[in-house]
C-alpha cells in the first residue's frame, strides 16, 4: 500500500535530477490537468448546444431553445476560463521547459500555429453566437455556432498533434543538437496522431455529455420531472452513450498501437518488469524494487490483449537501458492511472447499456432511481476517466519529454524558484475554479428564481424589453 512514507519518498528529488524538475512537472501536471477539464466544454458543449438549438428551431421546441441558450452561456464562462488557462500553458512551455522549446520549437511549435488559427475562429464565432441570441435571425444565428464546433475539433486535433509528436517524434533532421530540417506533414501526422486525436475528441464529447446529463439527472432525482430536465438529460446522455462503445473500441486499438510503437509505455501500462510471453494481466498493484506487489493477476491475459495470443512476447522494463528506465514510482502511477481509466470507462459503457435496456423497455427517460443516481455521478466519473487517460500519456513518456530525443531533466528550466511559482499558480487556479463554480451556481439560481436570463448586466440600466416573438416560450421549471 502507498503509505505516507512512500509518498514523501516519492516527492524527494532523485540525486541526478535538477531541483527545478519536480516542481516544474507538478506545476505542468496541475495546470494541464486543470485546463483539460475545460476543454470538453469548449469543444463539445457547444456542439450539444447546437443539437438543442437545431431541435428547438426545427420543431419549434421552446424548451430546447431555452436549454441551448443557457448552455451557451455556461459554455461562454468556461470558454473564457479555458482561454486564459490555455494562455498560461503557452507561457509555461517557455518558462518551465526552455530545453524543449529552444531545441524543438521549430518542429513541435508549428502545430500550435494551426491551433492558433482554429482558436481564433472559435473565439470570434463564440462571441457572435453567445451575444447573438435574440439579435440575429434564428437560422443565421444557428449557423454562426457551427464554426465554433468545427474549430474546436480542428484546434483539439492540432494540439494533440504536438502532444503525440512528443510521444512518437518524426519528420525532423537533427545536426549538432539542432533541428536543421522539418517535414511538416510527418510532424503533424506522426505515428501517434490519429489514435490520440480521435481518443481525445471522443473523450471530450463523452465528458461534456455525461456532465450535462448528470446535472439534469440530479434535477430529475429531486422531483423536477419536466420536459426541460428530460430534454436536457437526453441530449447530454444520448450523445455520450452513443460514443461510449466507439471509445472502447478506439481505446483498445490505441493500446495495441502503443504495444507496437511505444513498448516502454506499454511495459509501464501493463506493469511488466521482465520481457516474457504468457504475460498475466495485472489489475491494481504497485511496483516495488522491480517486483509487482499487491496486484490481482489474470494469467496470460496481458499477452492476449496485446496481440490476441498467449504466446505474444511483451517487452518488459528490463529491456529499457537502465539510465532511461522509468522509476518504480513512475511505472506504478502509469499503471494505476491506466486501470482507473479503463475501469471508469467500462463503468460508463455499462451505464450506457443500462440506459439502452431501460429505454427499450419503457421508451421514455428512465425513472429508475438507482439509474438516475448513477447518472448523477457519471459526469464526475467521466472527468476522472479523462484525467487518468492524460496521466497515462504524459507520465507514461517519462523520463523522456520527447521520446528518444530529449530527457525531461534536460528540458526543464534552471531559473527561479519553481516551488514558489507553483504555490502561486495553485492558489490562483483554486480561486478561479471556486469563482467559476460560484458563478455557474449563481446563474442556475437566477434561472431557477426568475426563469429568464435577461437580467441586468454589471452596473447596467434596466434591460430593454425584447420582442415577444423572439423569447422562448413558457418555462417548464
Amino acid at each position, binding site marked *: 500500500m502507498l503509505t505516507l512514507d512512500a509518498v514523501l519518498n516519492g516527492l524527494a528529488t532523485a540525486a541526478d535530477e535538477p531541483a527545478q524538475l519536480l516542481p516544474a512537472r507538478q506545476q505542468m501536471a496541475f495546470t494541464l490537468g486543470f485546463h483539460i477539464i475545460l476543454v470538453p466544454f469548449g469543444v463539445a458543449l457547444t456542439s450539444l448546444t447546437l443539437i438543442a438549438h437545431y431541435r428547438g428551431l426545427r420543431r419549434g421546441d421552446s424548451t430546447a431553445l431555452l436549454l441551448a441558450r443557457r448552455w451557451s452561456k455556461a459554455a461562454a464562462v468556461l470558454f473564457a476560463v479555458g482561454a486564459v488557462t490555455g494562455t498560461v500553458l503557452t507561457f509555461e512551455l517557455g518558462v518551465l521547459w526552455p530545453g524543449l522549446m529552444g531545441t524543438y520549437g521549430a518542429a513541435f*511549435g508549428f502545430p500550435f500555429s494551426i491551433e492558433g488559427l482554429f482558436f481564433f475562429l472559435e473565439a470570434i464565432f463564440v462571441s457572435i453566437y453567445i451575444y447573438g441570441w435574440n439579435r440575429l435571425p434564428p437560422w443565421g444565428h444557428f449557423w454562426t455556432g457551427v464554426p465554433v464546433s468545427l474549430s474546436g475539433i480542428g484546434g483539439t486535433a492540432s494540439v494533440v498533434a504536438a502532444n503525440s509528436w512528443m510521444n512518437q517524434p518524426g519528420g525532423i533532421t537533427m545536426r549538432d543538437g539542432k533541428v536543421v530540417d522539418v517535414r511538416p506533414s510527418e510532424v503533424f501526422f506522426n505515428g501517434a496522431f490519429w489514435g490520440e486525436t480521435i481518443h481525445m475528441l471522443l473523450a471530450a464529447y463523452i465528458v461534456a455529455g455525461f456532465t450535462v446529463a448528470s446535472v439534469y439527472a440530479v434535477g430529475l432525482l429531486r422531483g423536477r420531472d419536466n420536459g426541460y430536465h428530460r430534454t436536457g438529460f437526453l441530449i447530454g446522455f444520448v450523445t455520450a452513450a452513443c460514443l461510449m462503445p466507439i471509445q472502447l473500441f478506439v481505446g483498445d486499438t490505441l493500446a495495441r498501437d502503443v504495444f507496437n510503437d511505444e513498448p516502454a509505455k506499454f511495459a509501464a501500462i501493463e506493469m511488466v518488469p521482465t520481457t516474457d510471453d504468457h504475460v498475466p494481466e495485472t489489475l491494481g498493484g504497485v511496483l516495488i524494487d522491480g517486483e509487482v506487489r499487491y496486484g490481482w493477476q489474470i494469467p496470460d491475459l496481458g499477452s492476449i490483449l496485446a496481440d490476441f495470443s498467449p504466446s505474444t512476447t511483451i517487452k518488459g522494463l528490463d529491456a529499457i537501458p537502465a539510465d532511461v528506465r522509468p522509476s518504480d514510482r513512475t511505472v506504478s502511477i502509469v499503471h494505476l492511472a491506466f486501470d482507473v481509466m479503463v475501469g471508469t470507462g467500462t463503468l460508463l459503457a455499462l451505464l450506457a447499456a443500462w440506459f439502452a435496456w431501460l429505454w427499450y423497455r419503457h421508451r421514455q427517460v428512465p425513472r429508475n432511481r438507482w439509474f438516475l443516481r448513477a447518472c448523477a455521478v457519471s459526469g464526475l466519473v467521466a472527468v476522472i476517466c479523462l484525467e487518468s487517460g492524460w496521466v497515462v500519456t504524459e507520465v507514461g513518456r517519462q523520463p523522456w519529454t520527447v521520446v528518444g530525443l530529449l530527457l525531461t531533466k534536460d528540458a526543464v528550466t534552471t531559473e527561479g524558484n519553481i516551488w514558489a511559482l507553483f504555490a502561486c499558480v495553485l492558489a490562483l487556479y483554486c480561486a478561479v475554479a471556486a469563482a467559476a463554480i460560484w458563478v455557474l451556481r449563481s446563474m442556475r439560481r437566477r434561472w431557477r428564481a426568475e426563469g429568464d436570463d435577461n437580467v441586468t448586466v454589471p452596473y447596467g440600466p434596466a434591460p430593454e424589453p425584447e420582442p415577444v416573438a423572439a423569447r422562448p416560450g413558457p418555462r417548464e421549471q
Partner: protein
Amino acid sequence: MQDTVAILLFVGVIAYALLGGADFGAGFWDLTAGGAERGRRPRHLIDTSIGPVWEANHTWLIYCLVILWSGFPTAFTAITTTLYLPLILAGLGIVLRGAAFAFRHNAMRTPEQRLYGALFAVSSVLTPYSFGAIAGAIASGRVPTGGNGNAVAGWNHPTSHLGGILAVVVCAYLAAVYLHVEARRADDPGLARYFRDRGLAAGVAAGAVSVAGIFVLHSDAERLFHDLSHVALPLVIGAAVCGIACMLLLLTDRRVLLRQTAAAAVALVVCGWGVAQYPYLLGTHLTLDEAASPRATLQVLIVVACVAGVTVLPSLILLFRLAGRGRLTIH
C-alpha cells in the same frame, strides 16, 4: 523568408497593441471610474463594448507567442528564461482579467461584481505594464542570446520601465478614444464628453512620456535611440503627427478619422520600434537570420498566416461589424 515571418509576427504585435491594448485601457478606465453608483454608466459602456470582442482580441497574443516560438525558438527561450518575472506577472494579469471579466458579467450581486471588477481593472494595468517592460528589455539588448539573463536587472532599468509606463498610458489613450466614439454612437453626449476628456488627458500623458522617453533612450539604449532617430525617424514623426491630429479632432469634437488617427499613432510607434531593431530580433546581438527555424517551418507559418488571412480576417470583420452595429448587445 525569416523577414516575412518577422513581419507576420509584427503584424500580430501591432494588432494586439491596438485591439488587446484598447481592452486593457478600458480596464484602466474601469479602475478609475469611481464607486459603484458613479461609475455605473462608464462601466456599462465598457462592458457592452468589449464584451463581444475581448476574446478575439486576446487571441492576437497567442498568435504572437506561437509565431515567435515556432519561427524563432532560440529567441523565445532566451526571452522566457530571462524575463520570466514580467512574463509571470503578465500571465497572472491575463488569468485574473479574463476570468474576472467573464465572471463579473454573470455575477448577480454588487459586492461580487465589485470584486471581479477590481480584479479585472488591476490586471488591466499589470499586464500591459509587463508587456511594455518586456519590449523595453528586448529592445535595449538585455536578453542574452543564450538566455538565462539576470532575472531582475533584465527588466529593472529605465528603458523597460519606460516601455511599461508607455504601454499603460497608450492603452488608456486608445481605449478612451474608442469609447468616446462608442458613446457617441450610443447617443450619449455626457459619456462622450467624459471619455473625450480622458482621451485628451491620456494623449497628453502619452506625449509627455514619449518626450521623456527620448532622454531615457539616449542615456540607456544608445543603439535603439540612434536607429529611432535615423532609419525609423519618418515613422516616429508620422506617429507624432497622427497623435497631434487625433488630439485636435478630439478637441474640435469631430468624429471622422478619430479612431484611425489614434490607432495609426500607436501602430507607427510600434513599427518604429520594429524598424529600429531590424535586422536584430534581440536588441543588438541576435539577428532574425540566426534565430530563425528551418525553412520548412517558416513556410508552414506563412501558409498558416495566409489561410488565417482568408478565414480569420473576414470573420473578425463580421464580428466587429455586428458588434459595431449593436447586433451583439449584452442581454
